[in-house]
């Protein structure tokens, strides 16, 4: 099923127009312009400091751009907040905060609750379902400080699932997680895609990009390239995005060509 039908129009899930962002007059994103098709798994790649997190934050309305704008299903974000979910970088919150795993996942439901209203039974059920999907149902009463890095990431994903959105933006969900969590997250992403959702993920691991995703957005201050994996994730584009470190890149591409080999040695 496709979710564009909800809007009654065929507007793309994400459009970004002439976006320029700067911190203290130092540009971080320069004239970025693209459109994402519905139901794709898109990776955002680029070197450290390329502006990947910033791009997501602008689209989510957390940072004001100097110029340009983003549209969600053809409309400004303010009208579309309930249809878009954000998974920030894990390090962006204090994991010693006094809440339980279920409390955090319930926060995903706040997007659908009016001011002054508390989450109810239905929200609790949805939150527990989301925890089940990430394999963390047994942990619902745990204090979040007791979780490992991979478990924290799963809780963040469960929170986004509880939000029940059509578009998901995730900032480095694979960073520093264990192998089984990585497998689990990947499966979730694929489930979201087959349910017609659009998922955009900042990804740091070039070796797995072509294996995990079907679209790629390559960024380094400017938009280097965007498109389907096969035609876009090329040596030329990688070189443009990552600059001079071609030696490493050649080997990365070699390895990603032999991805079956890579995956087997990874998961035994």
């Amino acid at each position, binding site marked *: 099923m496709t979710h564009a039908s909800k809007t009654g129009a065929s507007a793309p899930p994400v459009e970004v127009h002439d976006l320029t962002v700067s911190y203290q007059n130092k540009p971080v994103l320069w004239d970025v312009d693209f459109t994402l098709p519905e139901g794709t798994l898109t990776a955002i790649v680029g070197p450290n400091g390329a502006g990947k997190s910033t791009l997501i934050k602008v689209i989510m309305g957390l940072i004001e751009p100097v110029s340009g704008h983003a549209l969600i299903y053809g409309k400004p974000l303010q009208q579309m907040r309930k249809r878009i979910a954000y998974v920030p970088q894990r390090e962006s919150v204090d994991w010693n905060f006094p809440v339980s795993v279920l409390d955090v996942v319930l926060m995903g439901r706040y997007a659908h609750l009016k001011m002054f209203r508390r989450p109810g039974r239905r929200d609790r059920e949805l939150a527990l379902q989301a925890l089940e999907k990430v394999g963390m149902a047994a942990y619902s009463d745990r204090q979040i400080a007791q979780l490992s890095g991979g478990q924290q990431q799963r809780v963040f994903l469960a929170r986004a699932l509880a939000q029940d959105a059509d578009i998901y933006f995730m900032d480095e969900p694979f960073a520093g997680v264990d192998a089984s969590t990585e497998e689990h997250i990947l499966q979730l992403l694929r489930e979201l895609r087959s349910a017609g959702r659009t998922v955009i993920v900042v990804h740091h691991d070039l070796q*797995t990009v072509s294996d995990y995703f079907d679209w790629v957005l390559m960024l380094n201050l400017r938009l280097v390239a965007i498109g389907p994996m096969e035609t876009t994730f090329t040596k030329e584009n990688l070189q443009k995005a990552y600059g001079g470190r071609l030696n490493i890149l050649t080997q*990365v591409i070699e390895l990603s060509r032999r991805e079956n080999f890579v995956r087997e040695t*990874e998961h035994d």
Partner: protein
Amino acid sequence: MTTFWIILTACLASAACALVGTYLVLRKQAMLGDAISHAVLPGIAIAFLLTASRNTFPMLLGAGAFGLLTVYLTEKLQERGRLMNDASMGIVFTTLFAIGVIIITLFASSVDLDHECILFGEIAYVPWDIWFFAGMNMGPRPVWILGLVLVINLIFILGCYKELKIYAFDRQLAVSMGIPVAFIHYGLMGTVSFSTIASFESVGAILVVALIVVPPATAYLLTRRLSVMLVLAVAFGVLSSLSGYYLAYITNTSIAGAIAVMAGIFFALALFFSPLDGVFIRRNRKVTLEAPEAVAGMAAGKNREDSIPLT
């Protein structure tokens, strides 16, 4: 009766401060109470000059406005000046405090506005600060003001419980969901300002800082639930007030000082004996605490970047 009024004042102040202090401690902004209690001085002085009286409500308003101004200027300075939050706060509140001192010495030194009295309120005088309404003796004025502030804090926290929770835990997510974060933020800063000002007028600036930081910090060591932390913080504030008054009575010392000492003693007890992560418990449980699945996950968790040599 004077004893009753003093203890009631201390309890109301500590409950009001503990509620808002919990959120400051969780947002790692515990010293904001200190900053605000100094930065409001120009607000109090201006309100005094405009109304030419020591009427409490204009002073509360003036102080509240400068409390919010402190928060606003600190954030702007942090954004624009690329300064750390604590440095920005230090610059803003000392500057505002100095402006307040100048206003008072220039314009108000000849009249009855003693900044000693404003800054170092003395709780022992509370029973004589009577509020007369339509000629009736309504009891001590601070009790009414602190009671009102406590009720405002309770309404704010109970009404906006989920908004405050997500704002304190994950502000970015809250913004992305369209939760009115600015309203929650300035609402919290407003209640912090009012609690601080209403309290320090009667209990003194040092005790206010202690009441905002120490009971919530004690509660933080004892629980892993926000709701329980709020209740415990209020309980420790009240407990410190009661035992502090008694301590001051038997040692014949300053009441505010004794309350602060008791708050510190409760904190030390929690630090050592907390069943969650008290120093003693942690030492005895060191081995069993490591969750087996976490260890297993970490052992299996080879980062891909490490596992394939790139060069």
